[in-house]
């Protein structure tokens, strides 16, 4: 037994980059590159007006540079250090979220970021990846107790506190992402499906109460999702404009920087939450398919890495990141094509935002570390 372990460790020590997963880097790189191009196109009409400041695309490239640096740093360190820092990370996340509620900068009525040295730091974006790490670390330590109810309750409490803090910002989107991550990671960890189903049933039962608790603008968005053309000039204006833009794309789209809906300013927050609208309008169905395809490849790659991970910690990090990406993709793309309610959830790697980019690339870096330290045999 000891021999086997030694062999494995030696293998890594001798050729640490031998197992480096180039496919993961390739898919991430393609999606990030695509995002830079689309971000440029989406902000094209604003470029002339942003006199004096650094243009958005330059900022994006700066974040991408920092992000990939962190990616390689995280990849080169054994991910087991994460277990050592689980508690400090968790406390740090909670402190940051509380701090964000107290002194955060307000945007459209929601406190979403802390401004540090002129740069907006979106705590909720960073906390998603960090909470995956925390949850993965905690679940991997449960071992034989994994099938008990206490696993589910414990994970729910662990995740529930930051979820509540994020919800209070209010950032419904990120709160939903937390819940999705929690459910997916519990499921993949081997938690009791019976208990989970029971609890899920309870949640569904109180759903009407939750809808009532939503802010009026959130309810209006929900209503628009059900019938966007009922109020195309009022509450559903943005969604209708987005739907029209997506539909206008056709097979091949109207060309980069040539989407009329985008360039004439009809799309809401077109560089962030509605970036997929720009992709669909300017690059058409094929462009949209390209994005979905790249994400499908990336997800498959993450699942491969998770399955081949040396231990539960590595697997759980992979499951967490995979479920986060899948959920965000589903909700973000779903909302601009009218099959999901409008919630502020970014499209990973493509939506403009430094905090999101850095934390995602940090997560991908951990995955590379998982891959590098994986078992010899993969499935």
């Amino acid at each position, binding site marked *: *037994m000891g021999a*086997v372990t030694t062999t*494995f460790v030696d293998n890594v020590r001798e050729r640490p980059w031998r197992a480096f997963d180039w496919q993961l880097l390739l898919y991430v790189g393609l999606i990030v590159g695509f995002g830079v191009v689309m971000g440029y196109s989406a902000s094209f009409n604003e470029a002339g007006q942003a006199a004096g400041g650094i243009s958005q695309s330059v900022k994006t490239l700066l974040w991408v540079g920092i992000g990939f640096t962190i990616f390689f740093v995280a990849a080169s360190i054994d991910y087991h250090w994460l277990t050592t820092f689980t508690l400090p990370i968790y406390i740090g996340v909670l402190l940051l979220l509380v701090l964000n509620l107290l002194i955060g900068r307000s945007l459209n009525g929601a406190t979403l970021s802390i401004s540090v040295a002129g740069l907006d730091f979106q705590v909720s974006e960073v906390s998603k990846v960090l909470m995956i790490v925390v949850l993965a670390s905690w*679940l*991997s*330590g*449960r*071992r034989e107790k*994994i099938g008990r109810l206490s696993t589910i309750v414990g994970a729910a409490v662990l995740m529930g506190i930051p979820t509540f803090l994020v919800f209070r910002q209010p950032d419904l989107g990120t709160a939903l992402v937390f819940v999705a991550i929690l459910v*997916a990671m519990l*499921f*993949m*960890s*081997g938690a009791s499906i019976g208990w989970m189903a029971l609890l899920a049933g309870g949640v569904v039962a109180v759903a009407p109460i939750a809808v009532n608790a939503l802010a009026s603008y959130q309810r209006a968005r929900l209503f628009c999702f059900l019938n966007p053309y009922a109020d195309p000039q009022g509450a559903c204006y943005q969604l*209708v*404009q987005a*739907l*029209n*833009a*997506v*539909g*206008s*794309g*056709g*097979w091949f789209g109207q060309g980069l920087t040539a989407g*009329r*809906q985008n360039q*004439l*300013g*009809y799309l809401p927050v077109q560089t962030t939450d509605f970036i997929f609208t720009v992709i*669909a309008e300017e690059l*058409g*169905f094929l462009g*949209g*398919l390209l994005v*979905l395809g790249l*994400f*499908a490849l990336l*997800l*498959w790659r993450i*699942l491969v890495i*998770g*399955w081949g991970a*040396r*231990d*539960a*910690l590595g*697997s759980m990090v992979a*499951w967490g990141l*995979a479920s986060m990406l*899948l959920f965000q*993709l*589903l909700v973000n*793309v*779903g909302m601009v*094509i*009218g*099959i999901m309610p409008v919630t502020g959830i970014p499209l990973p790697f493509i939506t403009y935002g430094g905090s999101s980019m850095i934390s995602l690339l940090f997560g991908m870096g951990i995955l590379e570390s998982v891959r590098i330290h994986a*078992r010899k*045999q993969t499935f």
Partner: protein
Amino acid sequence: MADLNEGRIDLPRSRARLIAFAVTAAVLFAALGGRLFQMQVLNGSLYADRAVAARTIEVPIKAPRGLIFDRTGRPVAVNVPSWTVDAVPADLPAVPAARDAVLARVASSTSSKAAALKQRLEAFRGSPYDQVPLLRGITRDQALLLSEQAGALPGIVVQVDPVRQYLDEAGKVDGSLLAHVLGYTGPVSQDQVNALAARGYLPDDSIGKDGVEASYEAVLRGTYGAQQVERDASGRPIKVISTTTQAVPGRNLMLTIDARLQRLATDALTWGMRAAGVKQGVTIVMNPQTGEILAMVSLPSYDDNQFATGISTAAFNAYLRNPNHPLRNHAIADIYPPGSTFKLVTGTAALMEGVTTPTQLWPTYGCYQIPGAPTGQCLFDWNHAGFGPLNIEQAFFRSSDTFFYQMAIHLGIDRLAKWAYNYGFGKQTGIKLPGEASGIIASTEWAQSQGRANVFTGELAQAGIGQNVIAVTPLQLANAYAALANDAGPPLRGARGGHQRARIQYPRRAAPRCAVRQDRNRGVRDQAIGRQPAVPLLVRGLPAVAAGRDRRQPRGADLLVFRDGPRQRLHRGGEVLPAEILQGAARLSARSAHPEPPGRELTDGRRYYDIC
């Protein structure tokens, strides 16, 4: 090979759950892709059409308004650029102090008040991307001054709009010469907008408000075009997609008015009014062969350029308060007792109805006893002495009132009224100017409308000399005499009695220029006097009407002058109309001394319209 799970030190891994996760992911990807295919490929055109419709609006293209020329081709109403200053609230500085500084700079450059500008800006309710009008009609120099400071004036837009400008005979800006003929254009009122919207009028449109600007509105306006314009999300027009309809410019208008003659007539009337000590006056110069009106002066006048550029409330109220009603065209809108000039009607009626023969002698009186009235109720002849027995030609020459009292009484009111109608009195002449009055011609029917069985005998007698129950517009009077003069009779000799030599020559075959009016006059004349021997008789007698009555009247070459009636009270429509006619004067010049007008068709092939 060793156990696959060798080295695993913690949780078991479930292949089933991984497959479940992967399948879920695959289903979700398929759903996204399928929905995308449905929206973009299957229903793409539906969404594309919605998108185009939502960001495209139809914007009207204004048509340039037709110009107005006088009969010799002098422009009298033209379009000139007017510099306007607008503010776009969204582009103004957000800081109140900086915003006030911009307004202050605008104010100082245009010698206006910053407070007034601020008030206009703050009173505006609408999109912050709309243009808020701050100033209208600033000078070119002020506009240039503002444009030079454009860098320091964010949110301030200086632009050019066409505005109407009225010129005099010399091409100088002078709105008073032809104000009553031309009228003016002004903004469409809120009340009108709804009714006019169907005809393509815009809320900020302008429309002819008076004069030929109003009566020929449809011709002058042209047809507005339309274009499809793509807007950005804030409503700003970005790009013209297509022109749906081209704008058709308004057609030009050519008046029968001769602006130079209008000036001469204005000067003459101004002098005459001063000499006579009156405040209101009318001169109409008409070609009696064609009915064309060569000059139409109503004094006092007003400046229609004030209206075209937007008149101030103070200036407008000053016009309204002026007791001489400068805004009214006295030539057509006001009625006056015609006095002795009406003897044309009475004389014609008496001859045509057989009340008298051309040679029959009638007694005249110092004061004519009204038949059926108590003794002593009599009506004076103008000299309070009478002229002895007169035939009708002598009666015209003397302008004997008592002679025509008798004619009227023997005619009766309705036969007198019939001949008045035949001459065109008591109804609108149909001149294409707004606001024409019909006048009053007493008749049985008229008396009954006043609640009486008939007119009193005294009123009937006075009607014979155009007093008391007779009121006409100066244009009607001019028309009636044109109808008389219109017949190509023998050349007149000058009037007798050592007075002026009224050398009046009729062009025997004047080319008809204005068919409508000519037909009307010919018709009136044919109805009125036909080809009876009465015509030369009347024509010979008439100059004396002008010559005989008023010694103070300057003797000119005019065929007729009538001045009449201080403070007449006229009855109309069953109520006392407090129309205090202070002083009225109308002249009819039947001279053909004016030069022949040039041809109607200009070489550019555009059509021109006559006012007649």
